């Protein structure tokens, strides 16, 4: 189920909220887990089964981590979620890469036939992080299976993050089970839900459809500036698509008294590529830092480790060489910053922000194009006449308006995403319930135009 669907907003969410707050405290987590399984299960019984097996495996093997030799137990614990991830997400890519013929593919027809389970990369990383944290002795294995299931299934973060650590949610879930009278910040939750929905439909999806305007055109139908504008629209589409999801997820969490971590901190205002990754998809960056980069030795072999980590970032995003190339490109940017840091840091702030944004933006087409098409795209940029054929003034004005919001207005002024909560409710316009309701209604009315969140595929 998608957050940007009427069945979710009008049927599923109100019903779940109603039941959640109507039942006694010891049943609250049951309601959340049940609702989350329904939320996920509408994608099909096979993907639900794979998900349930991964959760049960993660829960059960945590106890082995205390009894068996650590390395063996950890391999055991991670094996099933990792196997599931490889078979569902990467099998096609592996078979394509080794140019497997129909006979070999026939052996894997079961896995190839099943649709990529939504959010598989997210929940696999969460379950794996739990196993590693238990193995490292950072947290004890959770005995309460319901609480563990609540962590893995909680629907606001289930499909596209933020990637949670068990330690972040454990106490909050316990509070749901034990607190007699919950004090949710419903107003803040609903505001974020409305703003996220609005931005998804009216910024991310419109940007995406405008970027698509210049895709697949015959020679001569697009000029160099069309390509540049297309890159800008892709940048805005990807950012606001994922940002909107994360904002909605935090809002939904608040409706159920669960605070999810912020996943984006105005990343396009970053002054260098390293800072960008501290502000973009923060929970993924920290996951890879803690569980991959540091374990490989961190700064001891900086260039090698950064390239490996970013190749993994690319592969995590999608099973294709274009995604690997995108990851390696970002790794190269981080290394470039590392070696030119003294000069880079002396640049005026506005220039370094513009430079970082430009470099990051030229990576985004790899999300949409194959490697061959990407080279053709860059060649177009270099060789086509300087002019605009596909985009008119109204498109550029739209882009300028998004740019103004992105670069000109700080989120703390208008988004109630970080504590203290409730500040904005005092503001006449920005905190107005009428405005929030109007944004949500506008989003719902145009929801048929909306596309699936890009990160649902990851």
């Amino acid at each position, binding site marked *: 189920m998608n957050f940007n669907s*009427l*069945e979710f907003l*009008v*049927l599923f969410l109100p019903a779940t909220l109603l039941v959640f*707050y*109507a*039942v*006694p*405290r*010891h049943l609250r987590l049951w309601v959340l887990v049940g609702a989350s399984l329904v939320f996920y299960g509408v994608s*099909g*019984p*096979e993907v639900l089964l794979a998900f349930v097996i991964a959760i049960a495996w993660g829960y059960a093997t945590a106890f082995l981590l205390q009894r068996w030799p650590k390395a063996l137990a950890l391999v055991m614990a991670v094996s099933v979620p990792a196997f599931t991830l490889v078979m569902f997400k990467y099998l*096609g890519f592996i078979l394509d890469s080794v140019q497997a013929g*129909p006979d070999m593919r026939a052996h894997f*027809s*079961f896995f*190839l*036939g*099943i*649709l*990529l389970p939504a959010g598989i990369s997210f929940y696999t990383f969460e379950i794996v992080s739990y196993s590693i944290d238990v193995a490292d002795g950072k947290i004890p294995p959770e005995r309460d299976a319901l609480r563990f299931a609540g962590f893995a299934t909680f629907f606001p973060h289930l499909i596209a993050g933020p990637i949670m650590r068990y330690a972040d949610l454990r106490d909050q879930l316990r509070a749901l089970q034990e607190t*007699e*009278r*919950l*004090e*949710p*910040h*419903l*107003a803040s939750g*609903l505001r974020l839900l409305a703003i996220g929905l609005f931005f998804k439909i009216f910024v991310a999806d419109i940007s995406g459809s405008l970027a698509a305007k210049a895709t*697949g055109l015959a020679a001569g139908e697009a000029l160099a500036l069309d390509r540049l504008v297309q890159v800008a629209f892709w940048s805005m589409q990807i950012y606001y698509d994922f940002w909107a999801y994360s904002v909605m997820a935090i809002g939904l969490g608040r409706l159920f*008294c669960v605070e999810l971590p912020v996943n984006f901190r105005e990343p396009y205002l970053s002054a260098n590529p390293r800072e960008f990754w501290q502000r973009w998809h923060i929970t993924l960056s920290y996951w890879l830092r803690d569980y991959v980069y540091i374990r490989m030795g961190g700064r001891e072999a900086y260039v090698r480790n950064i390239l490996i980590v970013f190749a993994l970032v690319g592969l995590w995003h999608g099973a294709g060489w274009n995604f690997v190339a995108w990851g390696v490109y970002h790794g190269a940017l981080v290394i470039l910053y590392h070696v030119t840091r003294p000069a880079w840091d002396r640049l005026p702030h506005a220039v370094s922000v513009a430079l970082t944004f430009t470099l990051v933006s030229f990576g985004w087409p790899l999300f949409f194009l194959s490697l061959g098409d990407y080279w053709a795209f860059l060649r177009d940029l270099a060789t086509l006449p300087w002019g605009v054929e596909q985009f008119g003034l109204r498109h550029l004005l739209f882009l300028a308006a998004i740019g103004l919001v992105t670069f000109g207005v700080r989120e703390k002024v208008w988004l109630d995403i970080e504590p203290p909560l*409730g500040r904005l*409710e005092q503001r006449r316009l920005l905190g107005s*319930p*009428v405005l*929030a*309701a*109007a944004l*949500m*209604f506008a989003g*719902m*009315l*145009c*929801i*048929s*135009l909306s596309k*699936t969140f890009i990160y649902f*595929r990851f």
Partner: protein
Amino acid sequence: MLPAPSMPHAAPSQRRWLAAFGLTLACLAGLALWLYLRLPSFRSPAFDFRTLGPDQSFVTQGLTRRQDGSLKLGFAESYPPPRIGAYGNHIINHLSSEAFGRAPDPAFFFNYAFANLALPELEAYLVHLEKLGHLPTQLALVQITTPNNDNGHYIVNWGHELPPDILLERLVVQGNLGDAAGLAWQMMRSELNEVLNYNTAILSLVQGGPDNRIASEAACRDAPPEWLQRLPMALRGAVGPIAGRSFYCLPQNRWYAYRRDGSMPLQPGEGPVPLIRNENPLKDSERELNAGDEARIARYLRAIEAIGRRAGIKLVFLVPPVYETDDRRDSQVNRIFDRGLALAPEVPVIDHRHLHGDPALFHDYRHPSPRYYRLLADELRRRGYLD
């Protein structure tokens, strides 16, 4: 005894905020509902396609999808059925009586296809017509969306195309609780998406009755007013109906029309649109056919075929081709679909996916041309479906 439920605690300022939010949302939702309810129905009273002249067509530009479908549904419910009926979705919009060597004649052939009907809704639609005794008297041709056309969409998934009463008919006869629950869920989704829809809201404000929508060469002789032609495209649909018949006579609008046999005319006054091959990505992450859907495909094929048998008429499925390159043939969705067909070998299916490479058979990559339909008619004759 059960412990008492505990409602959340909210400060007075939050309670006020929530009340204002809820009230505003309720008012706006009420407005959307009102706009939905005031949309004219084209189902009852039904429009009689037989009243259209040979060169006339009923322009559907500016109708909601539900109204568009209801136009044909109303005709199917209220007027005598033809000898041959075609059911399916927009892919076969251009299938007309001319393919069978006849002038458009709703007594001989009627094209009931609309929107994105897939097998589940087609089953409900045909069962509804069966109850009314309004199935075609000789042959029902049921088109299935070609898997590669849209990466497996609109084959076994529900759309939001049929009105709720038809789905309700299916709901009450479901013996299986799971199927009934699934259908009830689809009904709610369908209605929600119809009521809370910008298209419904805008069209409800500007839509007129059916009279101006009947276009013909004679009726459209006058040039449309200058101001109408100068309006930006985005505004034209919303403001255009004020201009009355002139709006529906605009060449780009007359293309969205049904002729007296329910077929959609090819773009008038212009040559064929540039033919581009199907390039819809066949991404695994976005396909709508999944392992396990083979059984559903077979189940729907059998259920629909049984409707024809019960009515004592011939019923054959059609999988039209899409214009695309050879390398797309071995797609995951095609493989799943093939396995589905293989599970119901007794069901007659004309599978034309192999005709994907001949540009003469296409109007655009997914809508076959009149030449294709003549070829189809020949095959129907050869296989004994036509007298």
